[in-house]
């Protein structure tokens, strides 16, 4: 058997072992099943209480919020960092402000988000935006600062200057770092999601599980947690693939 197949089999065995252990503990009766349900029971009950269509609806809404916040964070992050890295004075002005705000955890903005944007959609998207914005910005900025000067000189000897040099040499050279920032940003956007949806939401995965807690439906909570994990895993893989293809096409760099 080739090693890849062997690894896949072992991995499957690991998943089964984990589920088996969970099932065993749940059935042993150490803790009540209503507090610690067995995995398949939890999924079945959870799905009975939240039909697949409803669940899909929550996933869809959450993904929309993440996508919106992430897109805004990525655009602004890349834009500011490229401009700040390229135009020195602009960079000198913006950088310290960014450095002052960056250490504040995204969730700590929630109260101000409510004050500024109320309890509706914009405040949720704003918090997710912050989660994505800072990693994209710092990674892009780092990439801009570390461009190999030889590359820039090579571009200049070929007659490039100004915005053309930026567009044709500097930004392509920074793409690997931008890609890294985007992946970290996407992960953080997901990490922030639940907390963002704590803000008086009536839909979304965060709402689903917080609401289930109030109703005491542990099965729904577990279902929700697993769905959030799966959604993150799947979308992160997709993003990684898209970025890898994009990088291969447009530069020599590769994802770390």
């Amino acid at each position, binding site marked *: 058997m080739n090693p890849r197949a062997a690894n896949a089999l*072992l991995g499957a065995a690991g998943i089964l072992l984990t589920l088996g252990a969970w099932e065993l503990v749940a059935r042993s009766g150490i803790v009540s099943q209503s507090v610690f349900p067995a995995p398949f029971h939890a999924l079945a009950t959870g799905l009975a209480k939240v039909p697949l269509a409803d669940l899909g609806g929550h996933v869809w809404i959450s993904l929309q919020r993440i996508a919106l916040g992430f897109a805004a964070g990525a655009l602004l992050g890349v834009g500011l960092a490229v401009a700040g890295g390229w135009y020195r004075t602009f960079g000198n002005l913006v950088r310290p402000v960014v450095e002052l705000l960056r250490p504040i955890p995204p969730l700590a903005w929630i109260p101000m988000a409510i004050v500024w944007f109320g309890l509706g959609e914009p405040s949720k998207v704003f918090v997710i935006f912050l989660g994505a914005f800072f990693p994209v910005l710092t990674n892009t900025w780092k990439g801009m600062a570390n461009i190999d000067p030889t590359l820039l000189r090579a571009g200049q000897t070929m007659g490039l200057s100004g915005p053309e040099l930026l567009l044709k040499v500097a930004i392509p050279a920074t793409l690997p770092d931008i890609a890294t920032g985007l992946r970290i940003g996407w992960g953080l956007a997901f990490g922030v999601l639940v907390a963002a949806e704590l803000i008086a939401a009536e839909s979304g995965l965060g709402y689903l599980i917080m609401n289930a807690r109030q109703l005491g439906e542990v099965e729904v909570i577990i279902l929700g947690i697993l769905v959030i994990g799966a959604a*993150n895993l799947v979308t992160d893989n997709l993003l990684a693939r898209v970025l890898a293809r994009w990088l291969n096409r447009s530069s020599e760099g590769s994802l770390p």
Partner: protein
Amino acid sequence: MGAAATRHAAVLQGAGFIVSLLLLWELASALGWLRPHSFPPPSRIAQGAWELAVRGFPEGVRVWTHTLVTLRRIFSGFALAMLAAIPLGLLIGRSPTLDALTNPVITFARSVATLSLLPLVIVWFGTGELSKTLLIAYGCFWVMLSNVIAGVKYVDPVLVRAARTMDTPGREIFTHIVLPAALPRIFAGARTALGVGFMVIVGAEMIGTIEGLGALIMEARTFYRTDVTIVGMMLLGVMGVLFALGMEALERRLLPWHRGLSEVRR
């Protein structure tokens, strides 16, 4: 213009810009262009900070308490995660079989947003300290675990070869070659984990407590004291910076050889 002079000018520009922003903000509030509730001017924030230090918010819970409580929660969760993740990671990283066996489970567990566990730990352990510690520990644990595994797994094979040509016994290869070679990665893991813990704490403190910086900023908003909220946010930021600096200093102390490399790469 020399490099030092350039940096000097940059700092001046940046500082000047920030000061003028603050002045503008103060002025705009005084002229009534900005609502003080949404954008409390710097003078109000300073007042809030003073009040927080002297009287406390809520009354009697002063800033030191909030900060210490938050610190204690982060550290207990972080320490718990380290204690579990380092030995386990070393074990898994050494064994390709164990690695293949655990890889999908670890990948999935790491993808589960830590805060999504909040409702579950509340059901299981209530809203007390244990829940917060466990939540932080969960977030730190998986980040740390995957970094320790990677550190051990991706040791440069030529180093192991060199040791083997010197007849180094297997146990010593682990303690003298693999472990030190993995340390930078393990350290990077600890740094990331601390960042995760720092993010989770704010969410965890939003529920079931009035102590801690996360609780402070939420409470203050409910009482229309956004000036105090902003003080809390600033404290969280300062704490984050201090953590990062502390970890950096620690790494420089413990891994002096690694500094040379990281400085070259910059």
